[in-house]
């Protein structure tokens, strides 16, 4: 288990992590969501022992990370956002080099297995310099998994991949969970997080603004959304509906308005009536549940303290 308490990190006078706290249960997939520059990679670098921190406490299996920083190597695997390799090596040579640093015995069998898992067996003799971005990402995953680590940190593992590659990686993450490993997944692709994570935290401007299990998150923060398509542009809807208390917010795109409501019963009985007042014929009227993306945008936009 990883427990982070009141973690603070400063670069000069800029506080990039502001007193953040969270807990990652063993054997779970923990999603860390946030915009670029929110503090995701800084948190990852601290948790993997690559960077220090100014205040707070990090416990990895009840051991203080401050004391074992950079000695945590045996326990973790880390895939950075842009993995860098020695381009003149081939993947077998590179993984063998990493295995030597870990002092691994029987490295050859594990390297072969990992290359098969990440679908690089056929390119095993090709120099890494000639690899595509997706192939480098997959080699990065193999490097992170080398040595059978208990905790795997993945920083944007799917961002460079095509849809098929993305699905492969997500399957791989689910397999890691089945093997009992703890996965810390940082991503801004919310679909991915929704698909695999058990627990999610949203970080913005160095603060965790929400932290809950995926189910809790949906139960607590899901608002029904009405997508109404009009015949003509509907920009005026925001002004006209601004005084309706049961409407939380409205997003307008061309002829379609997405209306976030906070009282479903009132919305059911009143929305059609209110729409009629706009004198703009309705083409379609659809209700949907807000996705993680909607929750994320709402939370980050409002920067709400919840």
């Amino acid at each position: 288990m990883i427990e982070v308490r009141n973690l603070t990190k400063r670069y000069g006078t800029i506080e990039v992590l502001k007193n953040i706290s969270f807990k990652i249960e063993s054997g779970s997939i923990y999603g860390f969501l946030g915009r670029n520059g929110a503090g995701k990679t800084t948190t990852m670098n601290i948790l993997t022992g690559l960077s220090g921190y100014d205040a707070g406490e990090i416990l990895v299996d009840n051991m203080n990370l401050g004391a074992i920083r950079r000695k945590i190597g045996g326990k973790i695997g880390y895939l950075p956002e842009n993995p860098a390799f020695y381009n003149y090596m081939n993947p077998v040579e590179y993984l063998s080099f990493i295995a030597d640093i870990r002092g691994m015995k029987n490295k050859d069998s594990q390297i072969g297995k990992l290359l098969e898992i990440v679908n690089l067996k056929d390119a095993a003799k090709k120099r890494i310099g000639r690899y595509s971005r997706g192939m480098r990402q997959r080699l990065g995953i193999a490097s992170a998994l080398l040595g059978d680590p208990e905790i795997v940190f993945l920083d944007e593992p799917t961002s460079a991949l095509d849809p098929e590659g993305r699905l492969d990686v997500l399957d791989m993450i689910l397999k890691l969970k089945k093997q009992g490993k703890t996965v810390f997944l940082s991503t801004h692709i919310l679909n991915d997080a929704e698909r695999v994570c058990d627990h999610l935290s949203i970080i913005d401007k160095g603060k965790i603004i929400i932290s809950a299990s995926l189910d809790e998150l949906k139960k607590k923060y899901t608002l029904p959304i009405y997508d109404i398509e009009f015949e003509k542009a509907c920009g005026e809807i925001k002004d006209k509906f601004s005084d309706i208390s049961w409407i939380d917010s409205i997003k307008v795109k061309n002829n379609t308005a997405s209306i976030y409501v906070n009282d479903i019963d009132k919305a059911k009985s009143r929305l059609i009536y209110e729409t009629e007042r706009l004198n703009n014929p309705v083409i379609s009227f659809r209700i949907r549940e807000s996705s993680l993306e909607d929750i994320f945008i709402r939370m980050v936009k409002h920067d709400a303290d919840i």
Partner: protein
Amino acid sequence: MPTFKAYFKKEIIESVRQYKYIIMAAGIILFAIADPIMLKVLPEMLKGQLSGDISSLIKIDFNMAVQNYIKDLSQISYFIVILALMGILSDEIYKHKLVFPYTKGLNPAALVLSKVLHYSIALVILIFAGFAINYYYAYTLFEGNVIPFSKVMSYAMYISIYYVYTVVLLTFFSSLFKKSILAVISLLVVDAISAALMNISKISAFIPARLLSVAGTPDMADITKTIVSVAILCIIFFTATVIRMNRIENL
């Protein structure tokens, strides 16, 4: 120890595939061969350009041929070597190549040691080979003022010690700067300061550059103080590099 072995092997692969051995060998061995030949043909070449008998003006003997090689080793060859090695650590740090090794338990002291030792061994071998080759060509092409082979090997030892010191210092500077050329500039600034300090007789015995000036002199002075000073400086810069690599962030 696992980090040391892994990086030593990696440095060998890198030096072969990125032609570092060839570049260093070209910088060191090429002049060992070319210098005596050039000195031999120089009077012939000048004969065509200048009128009169110039053979009485240019009298080159064995010792001068070796001296000329030592001069090149402290100038052109030195520059080639430091340019080849300038990214020794900065390339690793600032191109984020240390992320996987660090998260897999890399030992920074072993990393620095393996790099310093690898390039030092390569340079020492090349320098000794260079002097042996230079000795052969100088002996074959020139007569008079022949120095015993053992003495030439002592020159090789002095130059080698200076190159090892350079590798340690360059590794230290390379750990400090993002751009590897800044490591080279810093090293050259230190060299320039050292050359200036050599003029102060009270401290000149402790300046590493003294190794270059002593190598090739007919009666080699006692260099015990210089070697002790170089050893202390190497330990200081090595330790500073290890401390830097332990503290470095944003790998």
